[in-house]
């Protein structure tokens, strides 16, 4: 049936996250925004025990034979999305520093074997904070992921892969490889001529010789987040670090590995959309709070022709926020019900990125010179917002996915 009720279990769990967002993240938002390469240790150390425990439960469930993303009508997706929304409301950049296997972990859960899950993810259930990451993008391969050039060459004598190449824009790449005992899932090609079919995911663990951080980016926003370039200079990794079952590991022309990765985006896109909506909500709430001090409070019973320009804008901000959040809830609800959600995931991601960009830009505008000042966080939120139109599939790429889906087209018909 059609039902918008959020289980009390989840709203209760969010109370802790709200506290963290208000009392830890927000308090240091401006500091970490102005000290780009410093790590938000307060947030990291506070979250790690909780995340560690969550990882333990998730790994246990997965090792018991149930795939996390197909456990029937569940709450996992909704729970995650609401948590991410709350933490991003706190601080989007700090949220991205959550010590967690993240996208790298998602790839392992999507295509890894039981043995690989145990080998790579067990350490996330114990010890010190650590990070997982995914490295896909290269200077010549952004939206066009099939153009990656990082090479993986097999050495039969040592039964190892040799990786050569450079990845850019890897979220938490430094955290994963040089600041903790983490890992990065690196997409490399075993056969440059084979396009997508040659692309495979390899797990590169921390402190692997031949792997170095070339650069940590300085960004418009989400400055607390670590965005790194990673160089692979004939770095050797065990053969078994190629993710997936033997049939995926076969050097044949199948694209199963690539498709597996693309499947992780069906799960991660709603999460990005949720993050975007959290930032949007922060901007919306502050705008309403400050306008209320000027005596401007939205009256939902007022007819349109009596609304001032500011009230109109506020109404529009709220409407777009609601639309974005409902689309996100729908995408994650399908996933929790074990149903395909590629179309809905791309819809919510495309819409949410656009909505948070518009909402935060409008918030700065409505708050005048104060909105423009670094004394308020809203200018930071506008800067933090913009990445949501770009990463994990730009708005244009997500529109392309939506268009292909509704038209029944492939890349052949619609470029």
């Amino acid at each position, binding site marked *: 049936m*059609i039902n918008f009720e959020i289980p009390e279990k989840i709203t209760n769990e969010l109370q802790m996250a709200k506290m963290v967002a208000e009392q830890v993240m927000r308090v240091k938002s401006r500091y970490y925004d102005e000290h780009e390469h410093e790590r938000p240790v307060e947030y990291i150390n506070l979250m790690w025990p909780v995340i560690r425990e969550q990882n333990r439960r998730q790994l246990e469930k997965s090792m018991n034979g149930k795939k996390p993303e197909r456990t029937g009508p569940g709450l996992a997706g*909704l729970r995650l999305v609401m948590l991410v929304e709350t933490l991003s409301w706190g601080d989007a950049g700090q949220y991205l520093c959550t010590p967690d296997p993240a996208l790298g972990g998602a790839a392992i859960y999507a295509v890894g074997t039981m043995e690989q899950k145990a080998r790579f993810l067990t350490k996330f259930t114990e010890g010190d904070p650590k990070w997982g990451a995914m490295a896909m993008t290269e200077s010549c391969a952004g939206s066009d992921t099939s153009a990656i050039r990082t090479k993986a060459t097999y050495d039969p004598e040592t039964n190892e892969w040799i990786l050569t190449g450079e990845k850019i824009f890897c979220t938490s790449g430094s955290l994963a490889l040089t600041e903790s005992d983490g890992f990065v899932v690196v997409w490399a090609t075993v056969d440059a001529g084979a396009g997508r079919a040659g692309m495979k995911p390899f797990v590169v663990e921390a402190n692997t010789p031949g792997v170095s951080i070339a650069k940590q980016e300085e960004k418009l926003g989400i400055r607390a987040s670590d965005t790194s370039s990673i160089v692979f200079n004939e770095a050797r990794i065990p053969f078994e670090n190629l993710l997936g079952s033997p049939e995926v590991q076969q050097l044949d022309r199948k694209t199963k590995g690539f498709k597996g990765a693309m499947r992780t985006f069906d799960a991660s896109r709603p999460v990005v959309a949720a993050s975007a909506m959290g930032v949007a909500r922060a901007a919306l709430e502050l705008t309403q709070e400050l306008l209320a001090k000027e005596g401007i409070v939205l009256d939902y019973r007022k007819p349109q022709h009596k609304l001032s320009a500011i009230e109109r804008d506020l109404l529009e901000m709220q409407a777009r926020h609601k639309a974005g959040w*409902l689309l996100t809830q729908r995408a994650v609800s399908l996933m929790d019900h074990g149903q395909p959600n590629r179309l809905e995931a791309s819809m919510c991601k495309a819409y949410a990125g656009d909505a948070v960009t518009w909402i935060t830009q409008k918030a700065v505008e409505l708050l005048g010179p104060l909105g423009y000042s670094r004394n308020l966080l809203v200018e930071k939120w506008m800067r933090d917002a913009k990445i949501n139109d770009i990463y994990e599939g730009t708005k244009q790429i997500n529109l*392309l996915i939506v268009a292909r889906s509704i*038209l029944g087209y492939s890349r052949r018909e619609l470029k």
Partner: protein
Amino acid sequence: MLSFEPDEEQKMLVEAIEKFAANQMRKVYREAEEEGIIPGHLRQSGWDFGLLPAGIPEQYGGFGEYSVVTAALAAEAMAFGDLAISLAIATPALVGIPLLLSGTEVQKERYLPMFCEESPPSVTAAIIEPTIQYDPRELKTTADHLDGGYVLNGEKSLVPLASEADLILVYANENGNTQAFLVPGDADGLILGSADQLMGLRALPIYNISLQDCYVPAANKLGEEEGISFDLILNHSRVALAASAVGLANAAAVYARQYAKERIQFDEPIAHRQSIAFMLAEMAIEVDSARLMVWETAWKLDRGEDATKEATLMKQYVDQAVLRVADSTVQILGGYGYIREYPAELWLRNARGFSSFDGLAIV
């Protein structure tokens, strides 16, 4: 628990209406629009779905299963067929639903049974006013308490099926509050005006009416002393209209999508071009998000919660979305979008109206 799947009964109902829309409404809507006439059997067939009786309690002759969500699903499916015809079919609800929501026991007993008959009753409501600054919460039509009754004065427009109405629910301003009054069709001072000349909805017989010192006894004031909860009624109306807008927008989006796949230019379908494909993608997102806004508002109403904020945001969003989708559809069809042999121009003319339709439909 968060879920977006209509239940089996809802799916069956929607499927049945979709068939009706495709096999009957779509066959006649253009002629109906050009001639200004809706074939009578269509209104009867629409009535046969029992949408209004479904919401009326058993003691008055209905099925006692009032669900705003279900009604919204039905309204969307009807409007997908044709908006004007769906509004004609839904006209009796303009009196039935407010009775359900705000009528006294005496009024319910007297009037609700007529909505559970084989044929639709000839009733309608008058709320919209011929003024630039139409505000349903601050109407210009007045009701003055006098001699154990009320005297109504004012002008109304966009009253559907007024010429055949035996009973009209007239909304008027009583001391700053919007109230509603059951006015017999032959009442003194209730004057049927000219047919409304509108940009769209030309298949729907729709009229201006005039109230000139029109007296009704106190018993005819909906809710009697207590009056009506107008916010609630308006929220229900907004759901009906927004659901209809989603149906219309979806009709346009689906049509444009199909057209773009078939129209060959430069040796390939125009759907192969990003500019067109992106428009289609954005249209699909707008339809889906608009629908979710409707569902959430309807769901809250079903739970008896105040949904004024949701209804206002829904209206704000959907009014714009339906226009953008309809406009994009005309655009995608190019020259064919401009001529009346194709449905796009009709959808655009209808789409623009939603921002002024407050009160024209209700679920």
